[in-house]
C-alpha cells in the first residue's frame, strides 16, 4: 500500500470518528445515550439503517458472489421494500406511542416479563455471537490480502468502534453511520466507473453486458418453485419479506436506529428511504462484481484468488502440479479471449448467426477454464487439508490491490473499514441497551438514577465490545461455530417475528400461550433445519406461521385465569 493510500485510509476514518464523537458530546441521560436524544432526521435514519445492515462482508463477498454466480443474489432483497411499508404501518406507531428504549420493552406491556426477556435473550444470543463474526470476517480477508496480523486487524476495527460507541452512545453511532454510508456508496460508484474505464477501448458497456450475459452472470431472476433453490423470485419476495420484517422490526440493532428519530414521521420516511434505495445499492455492488468478471475476460485472472493459500500450497509436494495447472489456465484464457474477440466482431457486424455460434464457443471455453480452476482448488485441498478453497470473498479485494490506482486503493479500504465499523457499532449499542433496559433495570437495579443507567450502558457497551473482539481473535479456532452462527439468525428471526405479530394483532392471545408457542415453533424450525434441505429464507416464514398458529390453539386450550 502506498503512502497516499494510508493518508486516505487513516485521514477519512479519523475525520468520521472525530465528527461522530463531537456531535454526540454531553450525553448524560438515558434518552440521549440510548436513543440519541431523538434528534435525527429521515436521511440520517435511512442511511443509518442501511449502514447497520451493510457489514464489510457485503462489500467483500457480494462482488465475488456476482463474479462466480451472477446477479441472482439480488432476489434476496425483493421482500425488503414491502417490509418497510408494513413496518411503517404496523410496528412503528406502537413503538413511538409507548416511547420504548428497546423493541422487547413493548412485549411486557402487551404480554408479560417472561415473554419480553425470552425474546431479548434470543436477540442477545444471536447478535452477541454475530458481533464477533462481523469483526472477524473482514479481518481474515484484509489480513490475508494485505499481509497484516489477524489479531491486530481485529483489535484495530474493534478498538476504534468501542471507543466512539462508549463515548457517544446511539447518537455517535447514527452520526458516524451517516458519513460512513456516504463514503461507502461513493466508493463503490467510483470503483464501478474505474473498472468500466479499464476495459479495452473497443468494449462498450453494452458489449460488456453481452459478454457477462453470455457467460451466465446476468441471471438475476429465477422463476422456479424449487424450495431448495437458495434464491428465487418467490423465496426472495416471501422469505425476504418475513426476514426483513423480523430484522428491521424486532432486531434492536435496527429498531434503535429509527427510535432515535425526531418524530415518527421522520422515522417512517427513513424506513421508506431504505425501501427505495436498498435494491439499487445492492445492484451497484453486484454490477461491480460482474464488471470485475468482464475485466478478467481481457486480463489473466489468478487461478486462485486467495494468494496466500496458493503460495502456501506451492511450498508443498504439489507445487509442480499447481504450476502445470497455472500454465494450462493461461492457455485456456488465451483461447477464450480469442473467442470473445470473435464474438465482439460478430456484435459489430450485427451478424445474428455469427453471434450465436460465437456465444456457444465462448461458453465452451469458459467451462474449460472453470474446470482447470476447480482442479486447482482440489489440488490445494490435497496440499493443505486445512485450507479454505472458497475464494469468492477474496476476488474483489485482490482485484482492488492489483489493478486500481494509488489513492483509490485507500478509498476502497475505507469503504470496507467503514462497513465493518458501522455494523459493529450498531450491534454493540443495541446489545448494551437491551442488557441495561431489559435485564439490568428490570431484574438487577430497579430504582437507580438515569446517570447510573448511562454509566452501566457504557460499561456494557465496552464489555460486549471486548467479548466481540475476543471472539473474533479466536474465531479461527472455531470454524464450525462460525457456520452455526451464520445460520443462527434465520433460525430465530421467524419465531421472534411471530411473537411481535401476535403482540400487534391478536388482543385475545395472552403471554403464556405465546411463550409456549414460541418454544414449540422454535423446535419446528430446528427440526426443518436438521431434517430437510429447505433453503434458510423459508425458516423465517415457517417460524412465524408456527407461532401464530400454535398460540391460537394454545390460547383456546389453556384454562383462563
Amino acid at each position, binding site marked *: 500500500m502506498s503512502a497516499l493510500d494510508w493518508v486516505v485510509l487513516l485521514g477519512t476514518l479519523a475525520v468520521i470518528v472525530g465528527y461522530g464523537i463531537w456531535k454526540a458530546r454531553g450525553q448524560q441521560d438515558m434518552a440521549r445515550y440510548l436513543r440519541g436524544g431523538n434528534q435525527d432526521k429521515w436521511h440520517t435514519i435511512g442511511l443509518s439503517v442501511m449502514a447497520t445492515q451493510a457489514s464489510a462482508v457485503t462489500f467483500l463477498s457480494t462482488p465475488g458472489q456476482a463474479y462466480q454466480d451472477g*446477479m441472482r443474489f439480488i432476489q434476496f432483497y425483493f421482500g425488503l*421494500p414491502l417490509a418497510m411499508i408494513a413496518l411503517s*404501518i404496523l410496528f412503528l406507531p406502537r413503538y*413511538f406511542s409507548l416511547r420504548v428504549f428497546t423493541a422487547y420493552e413493548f412485549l411486557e406491556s402487551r404480554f408479560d416479563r417472561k415473554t419480553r426477556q425470552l425474546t431479548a435473550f434470543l436477540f442477545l444470543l444471536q447478535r452477541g455471537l454475530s458481533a464477533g463474526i462481523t469483526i472477524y470476517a473482514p479481518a481474515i480477508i484484509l489480513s490475508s490480502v494485505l499481509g497484516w496480523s489477524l489479531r491486530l486487524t481485529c483489535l484495530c476495527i474493534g478498538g476504534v468502534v468501542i471507543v466512539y460507541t462508549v463515548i457517544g452512545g446511539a447518537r455517535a453511532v447514527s452520526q458516524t453511520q451517516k458519513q460512513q454510508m456516504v463514503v461507502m456508496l461513493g466508493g463503490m460508484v467510483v470503483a464501478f466507473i474505474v473498472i468500466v474505464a479499464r476495459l479495452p477501448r473497443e468494449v462498450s458497456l453494452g458489449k460488456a453486458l453481452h459478454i457477462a450475459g453470455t457467460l451466465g452472470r*446476468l441471471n438475476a431472476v429465477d422463476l422456479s418453485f424449487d424450495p431448495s433453490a437458495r434464491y428465487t*423470485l418467490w423465496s426472495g419476495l416471501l422469505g425476504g419479506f418475513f426476514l426483513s420484517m423480523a430484522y428491521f422490526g424486532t432486531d434492536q440493532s435496527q429498531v434503535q436506529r429509527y427510535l432515535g428519530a425526531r418524530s415518527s*414521521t421522520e422515522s417512517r420516511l427513513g424506513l*421508506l428511504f431504505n*425501501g427505495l434505495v436498498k435494491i439499487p445499492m445492492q*445492484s451497484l455492488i453486484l454490477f461491480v462484481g460482474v464488471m470485475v468478471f468482464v475485466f478478467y475476460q481481457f486480463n489473466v485472472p489468478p487461478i486462485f484468488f486467495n494468494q496466500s493459500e496458493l503460495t502456501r500450497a506451492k511450498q508443498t509436494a504439489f507445487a509442480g502440479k499447481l504450476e502445470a495447472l497455472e500454465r494450462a489456465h493461461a492457455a485456456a484464457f488465451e483461447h477464450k479471449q480469442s473467442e470473445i474477440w470473435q464474438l465482439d466482431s460478430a456484435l459489430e457486424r450485427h451478424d445474428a448467426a455469427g453471434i450465436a455460434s460465437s456465444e456457444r464457443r465462448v461458453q465452451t471455453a469458459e467451462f474449460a477454464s472453470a474446470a482447470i480452476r476447480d482442479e486447482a482448488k482440489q489440488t490445494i485441498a490435497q496440499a493443505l487439508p486445512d485450507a479454505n478453497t472458497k475464494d469468492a470473498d477474496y476476488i474483489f479485494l485482490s482485484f482492488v490491490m492489483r489493478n486500481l490506482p494509488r489513492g483509490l486503493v485507500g478509498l476502497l479500504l475505507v469503504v470496507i473499514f467503514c462497513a465493518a465499523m458501522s455494523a459493529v457499532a450498531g450491534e454493540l449499542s443495541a446489545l448494551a441497551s437491551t442488557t441495561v433496559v431489559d435485564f439490568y433495570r428490570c431484574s438487577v437495579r430497579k430504582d437507580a438514577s438515569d446517570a447510573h443507567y448511562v454509566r452501566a450502558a457504557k460499561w456494557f457497551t465496552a464489555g460486549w465490545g471486548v467479548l466481540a473482539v475476543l471472539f473474533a481473535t479466536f474465531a479461527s479456532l472455531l470454524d464450525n461455530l462460525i457456520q452455526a452462527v451464520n445460520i443462527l439468525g434465520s433460525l430465530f428471526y421467524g419465531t421472534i417475528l411471530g411473537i411481535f405479530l401476535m403482540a400487534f394483532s391478536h388482543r385475545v392471545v395472552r403471554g403464556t400461550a405465546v411463550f409456549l408457542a414460541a418454544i414449540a415453533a422454535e423446535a419446528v424450525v430446528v427440526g426443518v433445519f436438521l431434517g430437510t434441505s429447505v433453503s434458510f429464507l423459508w425458516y423465517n416464514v415457517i417460524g412465524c406461521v408456527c407461532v401464530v398458529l400454535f398460540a391460537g390453539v394454545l390460547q383456546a386450550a389453556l384454562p383462563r385465569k
Partner: protein
Amino acid sequence: MPDEMPDSAPLLSWKALYLIVAIALALEIVAFSALTWIYR
C-alpha cells in the same frame, strides 16, 4: 424528547409514498427480469 410532530407525510400522503415504494419495486423486478431474458 422534543414534542412529537403530527404524523403526517410531507408533500404527499402516506398512501402515495407507500405506492411509490411498491411501484419502484415492481419496476426493479421487471428490469431485472428483462436483463435476465435479454442476456440469457
